[in-house]
């Protein structure tokens, strides 16, 4: 039962995402004054399907809400209501509501359906769609009999706009009809609106089929015929009014190719409406009103499966265990090899184990690959929010997205949505100016917000960039002084980059009046913490007057990582290799002390050192040689001093458990396979920690924390 439920959730989610995308297209199209009827119909069908499945699975509120929205969409697609920004607001609100109702706990109260219904009421002041009758058209009754209400509406609209209607007769082979039709659609796209396809029986020998395509087009008929036929076999015929020739101003239109009124469809059955069929009478009236579509038209998802990410985590753990088994077998093999009589056996065992190892790697890569999802999923959701926020604040914002196909671990994508949302809200609220201000500053009234994603080695980079007002160092410093998170003497020496970094300090906000955008209880410090928790860093660039850019650098996956194993004070530690730049021998003579911190010079730049044994308060062991592991995350570097380097290994990180969840500096623990357990360092977190205390010292800030 719960499987069915999950299936519903997954399908509903898919529909909502598609709706969201389509609405964004509609929004753009509406602004450009070029709304495609197809798209409205698509949205209508999506909401319709959602209503249907929600009803079936007992999501009554969701179903009711979809129902009200569907009425509005029906009015839209049948031209009874015009698409405006106000209508779009309601549509977007509806999609948000669906999302909330589907959310955790599925609280039926999460959305006030009555309120929503009223909002719909407000925008759907119905408009007459102009009285044009199709009966006047030179169309056979049998044709009119098979048109849906929507198709009739499209015919009527085109008629009332004076757009000529045509019938294109094509003959397709049944085996190639799919591709033929696609080609036809492609050719028609720029010159005509295809209203429907009417099949007729009997052309040729049963392997072929004649299709009458009804279309509307402003393109001159001869040109239209040329484009559509594209050298192939097709007849184009103008559909005129009955009794008398076309009254259109379209001089180029040739008379119908054949004098009979229309091209009668071969019929074997009278198309005249029969008395209501018994089935109709049998259904209760309420049911009749509540009919639903799309049983057959829902996008096929047959070749994909949805998997709970925890199942993949479990599989990854199993892979980890298998890796441990493999190491154990390798060790036993070594012991067998020591016995001369069994040497041959040991070699065979070794070979088998190597094969096992290769397949294990493949398995691991396969599981990792499955966890990856394109960032586009997240970007789509953000686009919806951007639109809403921009409208709420009367700002014109155009969203530019690149790299939506960049793939990241599903868990990372989930965790990214809050921080990104915050950055985006900030960009619109604090960054992008109102249209008037922009014009005064000589900028286009429409602000640009860019979301860029790309892969860079083992990392994925996401940039959130606006072309707004940017940040002013001086104002940031003043604000920090007022808040007491910066001392005057530190302020005197602060670099402009460091000034920008101030925004990440807890409790920092530059605006005296907090708007509802930024006043949501999440500050930039939380954004930073969240990103750090994912093993990533966030950097900021800003130029006063021209814009701000946040760059988030994240690991591609959290599930399995390559790590450098090190020893400190007799214990094993693992450092994620993605953070390691290089490891060098520590030249004790080169260590200098600056502001109470140890540093060395590395190829001309100063590298702060951090002795892990001291940091972890371990008893240092005597050692002639020590190593410096240079870790870098984003723009920051620290050299961690360790006793020994122990090689590189793929590890599966296991959480430390609830009781140790608050311990900072460690990402978890890992089993190294030979009954050794190592703590995994949280490199970004440690770096942050080390540099923070250092900066505080350097800046001479008042004690805080």
């Amino acid at each position, binding site marked *: 039962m719960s499987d069915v439920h999950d299936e519903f959730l997954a*399908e509903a989610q898919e529909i909502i995402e598609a709706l969201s995308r389509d609405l964004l297209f509609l929004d753009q199209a509406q602004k450009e004054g070029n709304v495609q009827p197809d798209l409205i119909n698509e949205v*209508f*069908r999506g909401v*319709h*399907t959602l*209503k*249907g*499945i929600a*009803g*079936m699975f007992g999501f009554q509120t969701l*179903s009711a809400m979809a129902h009200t929205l*569907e*009425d509005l969409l*029906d009015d839209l697609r049948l031209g009874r209501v015009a698409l405006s920004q106000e209508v779009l607001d309601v549509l977007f609100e509806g999609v948000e509501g669906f999302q909330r109702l589907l959310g955790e706990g599925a609280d039926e109260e999460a959305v006030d359906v009555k309120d929503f219904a009223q909002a719909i009421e407000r925008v759907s002041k119905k408009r007459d769609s102009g009285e044009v009758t199709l009966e006047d058209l030179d169309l056979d009754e*049998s044709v009119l*009999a*098979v*048109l*849906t*209400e*929507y*198709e009739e509406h499209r015919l009527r609209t085109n008629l009332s706009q004076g757009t000529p209607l045509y019938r294109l007769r094509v003959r397709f082979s*049944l*085996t190639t*009809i*799919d591709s033929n*039709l696609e080609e036809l659609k492609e050719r028609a796209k720029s010159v005509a609106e295809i209203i*429907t*396809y*009417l*099949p007729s*029986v009997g052309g040729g020998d*049963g392997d072929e*089929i004649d299709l009458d395509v009804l279309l509307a087009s402003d393109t001159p008929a001869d040109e239209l015929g040329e484009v559509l036929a594209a050298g192939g076999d097709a007849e184009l015929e103008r559909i005129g009014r009955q009794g008398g020739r076309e009254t259109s101003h379209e001089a180029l239109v040739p008379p119908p190719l054949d004098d009979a009124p229309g091209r009668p469809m*071969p019929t*074997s*059955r009278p*198309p*005249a*409406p*029969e008395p*209501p*069929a018994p*089935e*109709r009478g049998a*259904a209760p009236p309420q*049911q*009749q*009103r*509540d*009919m*639903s*579509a*799309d*049983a*057959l*038209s*829902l996008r*096929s998802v*047959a070749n994909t499966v949805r998997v709970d990410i925890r199942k993949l985590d479990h599989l990854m753990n199993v892979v980890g265990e298998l890796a441990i088994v493999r190491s154990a077998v390798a060790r036993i093999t070594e012991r067998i090899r020591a016995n001369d009589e069994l040497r041959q056996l040991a070699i065979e065992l070794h070979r088998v184990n190597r094969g096992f190892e290769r397949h294990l790697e493949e398995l691991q890569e396969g599981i990792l690959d499955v966890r990856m999802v394109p960032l586009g999923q997240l970007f789509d959701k953000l686009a919806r929010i951007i639109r809403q926020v921009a409208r709420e604040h009367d700002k014109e914002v155009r969203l530019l997205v690149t790299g939506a196909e960049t793939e990241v671990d599903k868990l990372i994508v989930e965790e990214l949505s809050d921080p990104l949302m915050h950055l985006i809200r900030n960009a619109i609220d604090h960054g992008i100016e109102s249209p008037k201000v922009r014009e005064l500053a000589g900028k286009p009234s429409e602000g640009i917000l860019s979301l860029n994603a790309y892969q860079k080695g083992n990392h994925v980079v996401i940039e959130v960039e606006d072309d707004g007002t940017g940040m002013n160092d001086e104002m940031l410093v003043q604000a920090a002084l007022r808040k007491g998170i910066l001392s005057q003497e530190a302020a005197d020496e602060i670099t402009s980059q460091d000034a920008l970094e101030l925004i990440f300090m807890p409790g920092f906000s530059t605006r005296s009046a907090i708007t509802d955008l930024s006043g949501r209880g999440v500050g930039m410090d939380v954004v930073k913490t969240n990103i750090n928790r994912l093993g990533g860093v966030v950097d900021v660039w800003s130029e006063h007057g021209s814009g701000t850019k946040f760059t988030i650098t994240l690991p591609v996956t959290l599930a399995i990582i390559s790590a450098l194993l090190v020893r400190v004070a007799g214990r094993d530690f693992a450092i994620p290799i993605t953070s390691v730049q290089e490891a060098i021998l520590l030249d004790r003579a080169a260590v200098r002390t600056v502001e109470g911190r140890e540093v060395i010079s590395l190829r001309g730049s100063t590298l702060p050192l951090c002795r892990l044994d001291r940091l972890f308060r371990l008893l240092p062991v005597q050692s002639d040689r020590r190593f410096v592991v240079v870790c870098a995350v984003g723009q920051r570097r620290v050299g961690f001093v360790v006793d020994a380097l122990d090689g590189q290994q793929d590890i599966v990180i296991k959480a430390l458990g609830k009781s140790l969840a608050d311990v900072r500096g460690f990402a978890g623990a890992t089993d190294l396979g030979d009954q050794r357990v190592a703590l995994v360092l949280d490199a970004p977190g440690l770096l942050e920690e080390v540099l923070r205390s250092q900066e505080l010292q350097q800046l001479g800030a008042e004690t805080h924390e």
Partner: protein
Amino acid sequence: MRAFVRAALEEELGAEVMEAESGLRALRSLPAESFDLVVVDVNMPDLNGLELVSFMRKHDRHAATPILLISTEAAERDVEKGLALGANGFLSKPFTPDALCERARALIEGSGSG
């Protein structure tokens, strides 16, 4: 949703189900196949359900094949048209697997005896 219909028919009626993602797909397979029942949605991509019903009724092989129409509430007239064109019954969503199967069974048996 198509999967839902399919599962219901397969599991409860033990029927062998063939799916078509669009009206045209259906059009392509119809001339070569025989069916005990065809379930048609009014609102399909490419070719609408009414056209499919009309086409089937003009085609000798399918002149008498029972057709169950699934339709949209918004277009009551579409159902009327569909029935006029020769569909044997219609069903409105939301419907349960039971309702679907009951309908399907009635239509199949009806055609067998008449």
